[in-house]
């Protein structure tokens, strides 16, 4: 009985160690792709809110709150990904690529929030188009790994 119990824990330990010792390049791609998919959510939300504002479907206050929420969520995604440590030249390349895309997405939503608070509808319209491209780019990055 005791032997079986020990074997169970050894197996659990092995599974956990193997889970933590995957290919670092692959891990970086997976984490980057997941962060990109999470970022798409924030960017598309901000875009949808801004478009609804331009169409006269929401007021300024709820629109600003929703875009600010999306900005915070994006900031969190970017910060979490940036905290990762690339362990090889290839993973460093992947890291830079995803980090830049996430940072650019966060900046785009920040620009949108500034334009919204300033009541600058032309800038909002311009930013909606820009965010569409950003979201498409992130979608492609998000599909590169599971």
């Amino acid at each position: 009985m005791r032997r079986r119990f020990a074997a169970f824990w050894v197996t659990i330990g092995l599974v956990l160690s193997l889970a933590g010792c995957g290919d670092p390049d692959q891990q970086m791609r997976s984490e980057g792709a997941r962060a990109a998919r999470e970022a798409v959510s924030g960017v598309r939300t901000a875009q949808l809110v801004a478009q609804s504002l331009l169409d006269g479907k929401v007021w300024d206050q709820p629109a600003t709150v929703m875009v600010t929420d999306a900005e915070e969520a994006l900031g969190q995604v970017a910060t979490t990904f940036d905290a990762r440590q690339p362990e090889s030249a290839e993973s460093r390349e992947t890291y830079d690529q995803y980090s830049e895309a996430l940072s650019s997405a966060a900046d785009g939503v920040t620009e949108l929030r500034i334009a919204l608070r300033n009541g600058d509808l032309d800038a909002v319209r311009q930013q909606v188009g820009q965010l569409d491209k950003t979201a498409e780019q992130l979608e492609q990055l998000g599909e590169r790994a599971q």
Partner: protein
Amino acid sequence: MKRLFAVTLGILTAIGGFVDIGDLVTNALVGARFGMRMAWVVVLGVIGICLYAEMSGRVVAVSGRPVFDLIRERLGRRTGLFALIASFLVTLLTLIAEVGGVALALELASGVNYLLWMPLAAFAVWLVIWRVKFSRLEQVFGLLGLLLVVFAVALWKLGPDWDSLMQQATNPGPTGHETWATYAYYGIALFGAAMTPYEVFFFSSGGVEEKWERQDLITARSNVFVGFPLGGLLSLAIAGCAAVLYLPAGIQVETLGQVILPAAVALGKLGLAIVLLGVFAATFGAALETSLSCGYTIAQYFGWQWGKFVRPRQASRFHVVIIICLILSILVLMTAVDPVKVTEYSVVFAAMALPLTYLPILIIANDPDYMDDQKNGRVLNFFALVYLGLLLLASIAAIPLMILTRAGR
């Protein structure tokens, strides 16, 4: 005529009162991630809450005593205490989420940060409990909660591909990058949201507040068997809106703003105003119900005078418990913890505590000393036991799945 009015009013109140912050957030979240592939969980949850709410309503109508009072008497102090701790902590967590939900709704309407609204929201909850008659508060917020029907209208206006939605509903399972583990995790969360323990405590204690007798069983049953399933349809409409608007766009629901946005996209500013009012009413109403439920469970277990049918002075300890719970909810939310995250965790923890809440009700509903000729029949017991098995399974799987999926990430 008077009876018909009471039954209709009860049903409408039950529909409006069915949806709370847990249902709002969880249904929108799973709709955005899985489409309608989890609709069966809502159906399962609604049948479960109907089974057990009817049982607890019958216990009250026949015995004239609330469920927790009987749990302590029938199962003894120690077992009763175990059930009390689990149910009370989950109800308190739900209260924190509801107060946060009220503050978030006010933030969306005004643009003022929710942290500033939160003490006011908690104070307003206390004031309404202190001043307003039980039947009045139940009816007003239940009926205002009916405004959430706007989600059904919004779904229709969004012009979905109904065949596609039906296909999703009839093909359960994860989609895209989702895994079976996240699917199961959110299935448990949705099940927990539909069968939140406070609903049963509030329903049964409310029966005592309204002095239910055997002849009121018709009202109680119509509330449960008509009102709750129609409330469940509201849940499906919320999930449907998110499935239509968010799933194709890759948007994941993380904020209350995202929950209400489909109504604005479909119906414009009028839809936004209605949904904001509906969300406010649903969360405020649920905050009242959870605060009262916190007081009910503790006071009934310790045998204190409780309820709104007596003056506050006569049920002082009951009111003190409510005040302490509201203060605790303010303190927790003041740490700037995200109320939506609190909601997500509260429905999962609710799922974990479900067997401890529902098993004692099943035992009492089978006791002829309390129930006389109204004890459970064989068919009802069969389904109740099947559900108890499901509740146990959900309860055991909740924590491992939470760890495995990193809380559904």
